[in-house]
């Protein structure tokens, strides 16, 4: 059988495993639509412009099975959590009550999405309405097969101080894991969220998460996403956010994991006076392929968006960056800045970088810049001449490269944990900064 046929018959069994009997009709409709889109689009090939540099042949060639609850052995490892947080843990896409710790917090609802579908009628107003699955075959598949996930709701005016962590763990092999996350920040609410994907040991699953975020008027959210799955796994995700007027959304995508790690991050600026950050730090080593497609839609006037992507590429790894910014006709006085920089640490490392600005308004400020470089010998010599050994000098310079983004993460505990993870990913030990 050809790879495509293997894939289709296997994905049929993944689709068939979903028990829809008790589900509300709106969800059944969403599932049908998802299944239809996925079956029509299949697994994209490199002839598809959006997948030009990332081959999914290896994904198409695996006998995928439906996701099953996994053992949660990892539990106690403190490197996964910050201590001062509200935390939910999902194992193979299923909410795990034993590992989660959600103290009663004023204005915050944080629960299993499966439960929320039955208990919280407002879920129907958002779920599947924010993420555009028509062009995203794996988000469509997620819609058809997701079993559980997280529902995070902030009441109007809610101000949650501790960081809210959503930790996804995958374990086992050969499964399609489809977590679904819905975040609704009502008017004037504020919170900091960390969404983290990791593996329990060397799991070899296909994780296809979809995260939908609604940021209402005057709401203020900081959202960090860390993709740190095992180097044998596949991670193909959609993260889509809708912002209403006068809201602020600061998002940081840290992509370290996966044999193939692909994220499509879309933000719709659907109001005036919106502030948006869409930043990324990518570290790819070995033969990893890490592919980030970002899209900012400026619909109305007087909005600011800032995007900085820092990409560190070593060994034979490949990184793809595609950054689309659409400034629509009514989006006068838009201020949009995009920067993407790649630091190549080896001769065999590859970066494919494509800024893509489409501007239909005439009174706007839009800039973009892309650079590719290596560690400069002058910098290295300067540090060595002060007594800093070569390996440490390189580590400090790589850190400094990523720091411009990492420093923006406002919670000290989260930032320092991510910095430590960045070092360990790079195989460096810098001691205390």
């Amino acid at each position: 059988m050809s790879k495509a046929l293997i894939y289709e018959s296997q994905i049929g069994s993944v689709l068939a495993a979903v028990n829809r009997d008790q589900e509300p009709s709106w969800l059944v409709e969403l599932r049908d639509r998802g299944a239809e889109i996925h079956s029509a689009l299949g697994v994209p090939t490199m002839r598809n412009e959006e997948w030009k540099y990332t081959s999914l042949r290896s994904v198409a060639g695996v006998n995928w099975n439906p996701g099953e609850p996994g053992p949660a052995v990892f539990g106690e490892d403190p490197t996964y959590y910050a201590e001062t947080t509200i935390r939910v843990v999902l194992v193979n896409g299923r909410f795990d009550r034993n590992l989660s710790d959600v103290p009663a917090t004023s204005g915050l609802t944080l629960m299993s999405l499966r439960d929320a579908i039955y208990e919280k009628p407002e879920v129907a107003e958002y779920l599947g309405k924010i993420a555009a699955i028509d062009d995203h075959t794996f988000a469509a598949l997620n819609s058809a097969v997701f079993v559980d996930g997280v529902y995070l709701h902030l009441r109007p005016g809610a101000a949650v101080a501790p960081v809210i962590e959503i930790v996804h763990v995958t374990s086992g092999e050969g499964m399609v894991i489809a977590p679904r996350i819905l975040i609704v920040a009502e008017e004037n609410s504020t919170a900091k969220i960390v969404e983290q994907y990791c593996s329990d040991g060397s799991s070899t699953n296909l994780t296809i998460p979809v995260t939908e975020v609604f940021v209402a008027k005057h709401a203020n959210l900081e959202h960090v996403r860390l993709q740190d799955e095992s180097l044998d796994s596949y991670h193909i995700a959609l993260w889509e956010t809708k912002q209403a007027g006068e809201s602020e959304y600061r998002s940081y995508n840290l992509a370290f994991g996966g044999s193939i790690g692909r994220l499509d991050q879309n933000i719709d600026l659907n109001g005036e006076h919106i502030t948006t950050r869409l930043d990324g730090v990518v570290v790819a080593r070995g033969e990893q392929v890490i592919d980030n497609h970002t899209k900012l839609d400026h619909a109305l006037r007087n909005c600011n968006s800032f995007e900085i992507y820092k990409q560190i590429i070593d060994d034979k790894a490949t990184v793809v960056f595609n950054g689309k910014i659409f400034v629509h006709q009514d989006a006068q006085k838009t201020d949009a800045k995009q920067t993407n920089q790649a630091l190549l640490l080896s001769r065999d490392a590859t970066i494919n970088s494509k800024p893509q600005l489409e501007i239909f308004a005439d009174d706007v400020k839009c800039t973009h810049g892309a650079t590719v470089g290596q560690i400069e010998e002058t910098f290295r010599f300067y540090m060595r001449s002060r007594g800093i050994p070569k390996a440490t000098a390189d580590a400090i310079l790589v850190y400094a490269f990523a720091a411009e983004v990492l420093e923006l993460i406002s919670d000290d505990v989260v930032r320092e944990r991510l910095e430590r993870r960045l070092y360990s990913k790079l195989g460096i030990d810098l001691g205390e900064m």
Partner: protein
Amino acid sequence: MLEIKNLHAQVAEDGKEILRGINLTVKPGEVHAIMGPNGSGKSTLANILAGREDYEVTGGEIVYRGEDLTELEPEERAHKGVFLAFQYPVEIPGVSNTYFLRAALNAKRAANGESEMGSMDFMKYIREKVKQLGLKDELLTRSVNEGFSGGEKKRNEIFQMAVLEPSLCVLDETDSGLDIDALQTVAAGVNALRSPERSFVVVTHYQRLLNFIVPDYVHILMNGKIVKSGDKSLALELEEKGYGWLEETVGV
């Protein structure tokens, strides 16, 4: 302290010969000025002492405290007390001066079998140095040289030198691009570090720096060789007569 014997060196990339037999002896506590026109090889000499890999030593020796320096990596030279104040200090955004210097000092201490200095002790130590040199505390939290003016960068070089307490300080055109106030501050910093155990090699194009850092010896470098040596009056004579005078008298 330092004995350079018949040193020959070339640019590693294209094999262009720059130093053609340099001889120089520097004793503990002495200040030696190396003067010369552009392209004479004086900056190359400074960089070779610190171990810059852009240059290749093709002959001769650099003996520092009885050991051949040319065999050592740049960081090993630093650990043994060699310091180069750069003509163009490098900006490193995202790395604070404090972190940078603690990494440097602790690497040196570790190499010399001393224990690492903890962050509290280190803060106390560098605050003292800041005070000694009349600098501002904000220097400590700023990223290394990022957005610094020319004068601030050179002051930061001297500050780093004060923190690392080297035995052999090589100053590569530390005066270039400085106004008179910055020049005086930098010179005062250097003078404060002068001691019977510490030697200086001051590379400069102009005599004016030597009004403030008074050398024991002045050497004129031309076309890769020291063509004349003398005391501080040689610098004044050179200032008056220009390099052209020497070209005629020594015939290079």
